[in-house]
């Protein structure tokens, strides 16, 4: 009897065990759609534009601490700093310190801000470690990204809320006051993931130029005050949070917010009269601090619909308050601390988008957006009895549609347009057509034509007459009421080849971009006017080769040249359009580095070591709005990073890295001749658990 019971019990056990064990429900269970269209990035061979992707591996291997520097890994991109604390990122050469012809997005939120229409790279509330990847569209993409995308689009994609499950602390210490501390936390849950970053970053910008570079006399460099003129430190205290609520398999909610308190050293010491000189100059921008508080909130909702369709809604609010207090020297007289300027800008943007696969071979993306830009500025300059405040609100409406149609297995047609209407009374339509021909599955040819407009910025329509300090505060009145958007028509031919036998990929692009209605500051009208026209031509190449999975190299090269009507405009009295370059009378042509190249080599070594090195080259150029003294000579630079990961204890991993920038100490100056870059190094220690 007893044994019978045991047998029954045993049977029950077995049955129970089997139910817990594998059964058919493991095969037939249902799942939510995770990798939906908006999650997946478009393969380069299907993209309507040339695109460079900088992924996490490259970000780490580059050793860079700032987001702007990462752009050095994009063919044809110019990266410099107006002051060490104020990055300039420009494609197709420089314009001025406010590079305005590119769209910059962080998770879809545009971060070029009024009133200048430029990006304050140092104030972004994210760190390099928050970035998952950067997709850079080389060439206009206004059809998809709207105004400001005339030359290209930098799309920064931050790490998912669920990308991290644990904690991480890192500390970086190095030359030139480099001193960064960063703490990151992340938690993955069944329905809610989040991550957050707390960081402090600081450095002292460029090296201090104490002696003139080769070929220059002391006097030449002393007169324009280029020596000992480096007040460009930067300290940022930032916080960001990203949460992802996914209660079911259909809806996804993205919640993001962040804050950055940034203090930048700005200003120049030239023309400061002192006890030792009786110079009667005027300096409205001596050394001082520019204080900036930036924050943002972004809310997103994505709903997965039937048949791969997707509906998304995104709202974002971005705000930036900047202020500065500075003394001025007016005709040799020192007025201690009376000038106070502040600027409050904000943007609210709401966008709805529907991704709709029409057939297996045709996908439509369309939507609408509304944006309000606000800028308010105050300037108080008691020495010259000038007080003013200005305030602007610009509304902008956008409608967009983009169709991706695989006409035949080998042919892909991308057709799209953006329609924009703004408070300046302008209505623009920016169409784009691109045809990709897959010669073989691994070889693609691309031909594209697109039109893009850049809406004049507030600072251009309302240019301030008197502008001390570092801030640009729009004038009280619109002084260029008829200013039209700049127009760019771009033609390009691209080639993408994959060579699996050689473990290599090649990306080539030939382009011709025609700029019309270009906006420039008129020397005669004392305001911004249309009238510049120009043409850019170039060739870009990117080659990647993988020796083995742990050993790879990426090489980028760009050859570019440009011509404009600058000579004619200068002859007509527009002094600002005269070239400062003795070798090139065309201001636009001179402002583009003819050749630039970068190389990034990554190697994973045994014993948990890794090594990477990067080399950068840029031919000489004359920054667009700078004088001849700021002529930027050839730039050569080699960076090296050596790192090792180690186990601290069970579950705790560490990583220590040494980065040496400009290893060979080939000192160079850029943008302004006082911006000197020598060898510098830093050590980064990270602990994850």
């Amino acid at each position, binding site marked *: 009897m007893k044994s019978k019971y045991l047998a029954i019990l045993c049977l029950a056990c077995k049955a129970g065990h*089997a139910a817990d064990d594998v059964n058919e429900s493991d095969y037939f269970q249902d799942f939510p759609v995770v990798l939906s269209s908006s999650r997946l990035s478009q393969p380069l061979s299907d993209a309507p534009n040339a695109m460079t992707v900088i992924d996490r591996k490259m970000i780490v291997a580059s050793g860079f601490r700032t987001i702007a520097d990462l752009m050095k890994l994009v063919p044809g991109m110019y990266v410099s700093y107006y002051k060490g604390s104020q990055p300039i990122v420009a494609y197709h050469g420089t314009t001025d310190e406010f590079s305005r012809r590119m769209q910059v997005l962080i998770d879809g939120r545009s971060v070029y801000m009024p009133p200048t229409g430029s990006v304050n790279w140092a104030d972004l509330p994210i760190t390099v470690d928050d970035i998952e990847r950067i997709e850079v569209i080389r060439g206009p993409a206004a059809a998809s990204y709207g105004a400001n995308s005339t030359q290209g689009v930098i799309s920064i994609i931050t790490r998912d809320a669920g990308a991290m499950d644990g904690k991480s602390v890192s500390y970086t210490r190095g030359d030139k006051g480099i001193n960064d501390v960063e703490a990151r936390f992340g938690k993955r849950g069944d329905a809610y993931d989040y991550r957050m970053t707390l960081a402090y970053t600081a450095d002292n910008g460029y090296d201090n130029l104490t002696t003139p570079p080769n070929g220059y006399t002391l006097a030449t460099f002393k007169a324009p005050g280029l020596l000992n003129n480096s007040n460009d430190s930067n300290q940022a205290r930032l916080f960001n949070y990203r949460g992802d609520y996914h209660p079911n398999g259909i809806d996804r909610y993205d919640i993001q917010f962040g804050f950055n308190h940034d203090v930048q050293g700005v200003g120049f010491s030239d023309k400061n009269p002192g006890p030792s000189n009786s110079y009667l100059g005027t300096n409205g921008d001596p050394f001082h601090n520019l204080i900036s508080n930036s924050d943002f909130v972004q809310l997103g909702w994505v709903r997965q619909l039937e048949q791969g369709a997707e509906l998304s809604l995104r709202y974002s609010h971005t705000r930036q308050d900047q202020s500065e207090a500075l003394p001025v020297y007016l005709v040799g007289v020192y007025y201690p601390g009376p000038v106070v300027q502040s600027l409050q800008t904000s943007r609210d943007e709401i966008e709805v988008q529907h991704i709709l696969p029409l057939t297996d071979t045709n996908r439509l993306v369309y939507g609408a957006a509304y944006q309000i830009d606000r800028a308010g500025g105050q300037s108080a300059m008691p020495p010259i009895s000038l007080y003013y405040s200005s305030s602007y609100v610009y509304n902008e409406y956008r409608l967009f549609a983009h169709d991706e149609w695989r006409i035949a297995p080998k042919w892909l047609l991308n057709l799209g347009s953006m329609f924009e209407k703004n408070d300046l009374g302008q209505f623009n339509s920016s169409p784009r057509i691109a045809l990709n021909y897959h010669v073989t599955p691994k070889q693609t040819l691309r031909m594209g034509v697109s039109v893009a407009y850049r809406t004049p910025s507030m600072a251009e329509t309302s240019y301030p007459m008197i502008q001390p300090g570092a801030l640009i505060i729009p004038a009280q009145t619109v002084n260029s009421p008829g200013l039209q958007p700049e127009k760019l028509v771009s033609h390009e031919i691209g080639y993408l080849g994959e060579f699996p036998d050689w473990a290599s990929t090649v990306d080539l692009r030939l382009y011709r971009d025609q700029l019309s209605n270009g906006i420039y500051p008129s020397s005669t009208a004392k305001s911004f006017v249309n009238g510049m026209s120009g043409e850019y031509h170039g060739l870009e190449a990117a080659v990647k080769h993988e020796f083995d999975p742990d050993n790879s190299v990426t090489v980028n090269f760009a050859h570019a040249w440009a011509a404009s009507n600058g000579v004619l405009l200068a002859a007509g009295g527009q002094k600002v359009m005269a070239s400062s370059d003795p070798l090139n009378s065309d201001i636009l042509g001179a402002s583009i580095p003819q050749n630039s190249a970068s190389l990034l080599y990554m190697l994973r070594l045994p014993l948990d070591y890794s090594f990477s090195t990067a080399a950068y080259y840029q031919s000489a150029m004359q920054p667009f709005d700078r004088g001849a003294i700021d002529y930027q000579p050839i730039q050569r630079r080699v960076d090296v990073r050596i790192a090792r990961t180690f186990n601290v204890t069970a579950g705790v991993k560490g990583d220590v890295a040494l980065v040496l920038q400009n290893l060979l100490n080939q000192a160079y100056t850029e943008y302004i001749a006082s911006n000197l870059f020598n060898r510098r190094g830093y050590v980064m220690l990270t602990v994850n658990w």
Partner: protein
Amino acid sequence: MAQAKKILAFVFLLLCGIAHAKELRVLMVLSDSTPLYLNFAKSFSQNLSTDIRFDLIQHAEDFNAQKTDLIVSVGVRAAYRVAEKTSQPLLAAMIPSKTYADLRTLKQGAISAIYLDQPWRRQANLLHVVLPERKRIGVLYSASLDIPAMRRELALYHDTLIARHLSGGDTLSADLDDVLVESDVLLAVPDNEIYNANSIRNILLSSYRRGIPLVGVSEAYVRAGALCAIFSTPEQLAVQAVSATITYARTGKLPEVQFPVQYSIAVNRTVARAFGLVIEPDDAILLQIRKLSGSLR
């Protein structure tokens, strides 16, 4: 006398045989009455010849050793129920192969099975056809798995198996990262502990971030974001169960246990494009897998 007995026995057997062939009674026991099992039953009855009597029990619990000639159970729960209750011949359809040994020790009398899972060889073939350049196959598992067999099959194509056992209850993320770091492709195994509606999101996102595609075990995986999967539908398995039933009707014997004969593949073309993979049409892939199965057998 002895001769007469023999003849009688022969006639009896003959009669039995004829009766068997003409009036076979099949009782199908489903694990549950969800569409999954009902589809199987429907497909089975549609493909069955009219001379076989077909009865259906929709819930495993309702089976109480009813008299019949052959029982076809569908799913693990029904298989166990029948195995526990009766010694009548059982064809356990749509069960994972690894449950069979256990089931067999439990069952008195004749038993055979039609497995739900694909043989490792077929999976290796799929990987070879779809992702020939991805040689390091990552597998994360929590239940027992025949690792040497997998390794053997993958070795045919010089593929390496990177297998990791889940180290704890909440270490999925870390264990997954360990596998992904060394792999070129992640091969899912049917394992609820690892692959479930809650975890699939992080698995797919983590692997996508690292540029590693997931190969699933069903169409649902592919819809969720897996690159591809090779699997058999309940309808395909039902057709196979019908053939086994007919064999039994003819011979009075159950065929050997079988892996699925018919199978399908699914490819997520959007995911393939995002990975920059060029993948042939489904038909061409199936054809190549069949060719490989032939040549390698």
